[in-house]
């Protein structure tokens, strides 16, 4: 919350200060891939919820199935993210390009690290629910 909160604050401050930059840059982001990753994360949040419901009913096999699905979905999310980043690099867009891309790489990178570490799963979903419209949809 603190880590992302600081970045959210920075995003708002710089967005208000440099609206043209945000407008010019956000079109480089792939809305369809961002939306696809949103669906992937929402689905993984569902499988975690179902996994917990399964174990409460004592169904261990289902728990294993749902948790495996969750890990698979995390892999899909990171694969799409990797593809997006390499595409940005290929177009000469780096964290040092300007403030928008600094924020983009920092926020999605920090979020990706949380996905990778598997820290409190629904929180990762919550953060992405805000990151997706902030970075991909509104400019």
């Amino acid at each position, binding site marked *: *919350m603190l880590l992302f*909160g*600081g970045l*959210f*604050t920075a995003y*708002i*401050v710089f967005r*208000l*200060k440099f609206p043209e930059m945000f407008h010019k840059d956000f079109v480089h982001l792939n*809305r369809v891939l961002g*939306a696809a990753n*949103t*669906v992937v994360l*929402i*689905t993984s*949040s*569902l499988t*975690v*919820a*179902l996994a917990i*419901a399964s174990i*409460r*009913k004592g169904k261990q096999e289902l728990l294993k199935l749902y948790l495996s699905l969750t890990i698979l979905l995390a892999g899909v999310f990171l694969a799409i993210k990797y593809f997006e980043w390499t595409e940005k690099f290929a177009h000469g867009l780096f964290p040092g390009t300007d403030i928008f891309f600094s924020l983009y790489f920092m926020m999605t990178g920090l979020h990706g690290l949380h996905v990778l570490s598997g820290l409190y799963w*629904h929180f990762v*979903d*919550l953060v992405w*629910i*805000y990151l*997706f*419209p*902030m970075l*991909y*949809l*509104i400019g």
Partner: protein
Amino acid sequence: MEKGRGAGYGVYVAVFAALLVLTGATVGVSYIDLGIWNVAAALLIASVKATLVALFFMHLRHEGRLVWTFALVPILFLALIIGGTLSDTLFR
């Protein structure tokens, strides 16, 4: 079906469907130029989605006052941080 915490799978699937519909809605709206209202719509839809995740997937609706406090106070602090920062940066 059990009561309370052992909610059926159906509830989760329904919430999941609602989240998918809202994701579609927020992407759809982003293609229409509404000026400043694009920002308002995106944040409103995101907040509805976040609320659904918190209430159902994170089981906040079954939690007591203490957990609610721990969930909501950080949001208040974030609002304070953002408000405090803007009160400086906007008026320089």
